[in-house]
């Protein structure tokens, strides 16, 4: 069935080269679409982007898909176009962002074990990055952890899970990284008010 909508979520996977984002945005602009949000990254010479775009009047998904595919060739890019549906938040529970850092040789099944560990505890992964270096693999993840969890317990458990896979693991509050790398006032990082001067 032809799917028409006035808002789509679009992803494109293609070998990296200069001008990819220009081609994608041009295709959407030529269809009178307006891009609302965009996130792109490059992993080992492969470019991927996810974006949302809005049209004044509903357009068929196939039209958007064909316009994008035409820019790269049918076999060169993987293009997905879906009508946008407002998502449910991972959880309504109050959450705090932490940074996960894993380092080590990177054994088979590591990511499965760690992401399963996180999912089983309702910990949402917001971003994840892996890099291979001379000393092994480094994983850096940004996760949001329900405040109801005992963070000390989670830290101990994830360290143990990682150790079983010969990795070292640290789970640290996001603010420690923001504090050391941003220049804004520390107060702006804290969600609570401060007691007044006595």
């Amino acid at each position, binding site marked *: 069935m032809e799917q028409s909508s006035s808002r789509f979520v679009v992803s494109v996977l293609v070998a990296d080269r200069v001008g990819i984002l220009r081609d994608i945005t041009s295709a959407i602009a030529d269809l009178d679409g307006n891009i609302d949000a965009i996130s792109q990254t490059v992993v080992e010479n492969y470019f991927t982007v996810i974006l949302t775009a809005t049209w004044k009047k509903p357009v068929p998904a196939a039209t958007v898909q064909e316009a994008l595919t035409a820019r790269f060739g049918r076999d060169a890019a993987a293009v997905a176009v879906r009508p946008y549906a407002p998502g449910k938040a991972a959880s309504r529970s109050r959450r705090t962002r932490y940074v996960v850092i894993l380092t080590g040789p990177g054994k088979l099944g590591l990511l499965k074990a760690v992401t399963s560990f996180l999912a089983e505890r309702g910990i949402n992964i917001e971003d994840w990055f892996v890099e291979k270096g001379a000393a092994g693999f480094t994983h850096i993840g940004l996760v949001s952890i329900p405040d109801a969890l005992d963070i000390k317990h989670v830290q101990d458990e994830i360290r143990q899970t990682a150790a079983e896979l010969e990795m070292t693991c640290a789970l640290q509050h996001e603010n420690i990284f*923001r504090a*050391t790398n941003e220049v804004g006032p520390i107060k702006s990082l804290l969600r609570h008010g401060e007691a007044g001067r006595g």
Partner: protein
Amino acid sequence: MIGKADILATMRMLQEENLDVRTVTLGVNISGCKRDGAADTAKAVADRIRMKAGGLLRVCDAVTARYGLRVVNRRVALSPAAALLEDRTVEEAVEIALAMDRAAADVGVDLIGGYSALVQKGMTPGERLLIESLPAVLSRTERVCSSVNIATTRAGINVDAAALLGRIILQVAEATRDRHGFGAGKLVVFANIPEDNPFMAGALLGPGEPDCVVNVGVSGPGVVKRAVDRLVQADPDCTLDEIAEEVKHTAFRVTRTGELIGREVAAALGVPFGVVDLSLAPTPRPGDSVGEIYQAMGIRKLGAPGTTAAVALLNDAVKKGGAFASSSVGGLSGAFIPVTEDCALSEAVSSGTLTMEKLEAMTAVCSVGLDMILLPGDIEPETISGIILDEMAIGVINRKTTGVRVIPVPGGKVGDKVDFGGLFGGGTVTNVNCPTGSADFIRHGGHIPAPIQSLTN
């Protein structure tokens, strides 16, 4: 998301370079604890410490877990106890100090400061009593620390107090002979004492401070040393201003962690946050040494000409980085040079390259003063007073804090080795060049007037 390199740099500071929060110090005002009797006063002081600091340990542990940043020491700094000692006896003063000591143990802090007096212009009977009680107090308590401010740029130097403290320091050392005179290591004589210093032994809740306040001391000599190492390794020909820039950036990061933790602890305790004091305070552990930073800069033998300039560079860069990081920087904020607590400084003193006189020169540009220096047990009290006066003069004229924390080791001779253990480290009894000849000067007593620098209004 924060950059990958930034995340990994922060992790390196936390995991490999000994970045921690050296102390969370809760200031507690005890001036309202005076009662008719000494026992009632002691009880009121202890009750107030327990009430205000009862949750300190739990809160610090929770924040440590939350941020993965270790809070090494939890401490309490009281308003000057001399205010409670008018019309008391030495035994009554000891009773009050013992109550402080027990309360500190109850709330889980290893040191409690504020058994202190501010006597730069003169002494009340209670302040004199406090000083005279120090041999008993510092030998019979475990956690109590004392400081006496005898000079300010505004008031000049109280020479009578310096003379008295020369004798008292010897008596404190003798009273703790079984610990190599370590009691003297819990007593600091200051010029221009900061009201908000979180570091022991000189921490107190000074005049003008809130009723209760959290001050935080961050350290990180290991972080700074590694940053200088990396810079020099990448560019062996880097200039000293480039090193200063690197130190400044590193100090910025370290200070920010301190403010973050301090504000969290203060909010959890429901008290105001005061200051973050970024002081490069070493521990005896290699890799956590201020002396090693000077070595990383190129001072191969500490004490060699150029050492004072290296201290000045470091101290200034630390202050600049801290000042940009936070508008709540206070305390001492700079570089400490506590000899027994720093493996590189201690080794330099042992080998003879770093002398008492060179240390004194360094104190003109470091953040405090002569700190944790072992002296011969037979040193004259007037010589200690002379050391104190010299140091006070440096502070008063330069409008900076200076301090003297020296330990005459009972029975100790120049070259003897002493080990206090733990964070206090150990070292070699050092020589005072020309140990006699100042007695007549000290005996004049009185007051060295405030310098012309004090007339600023």
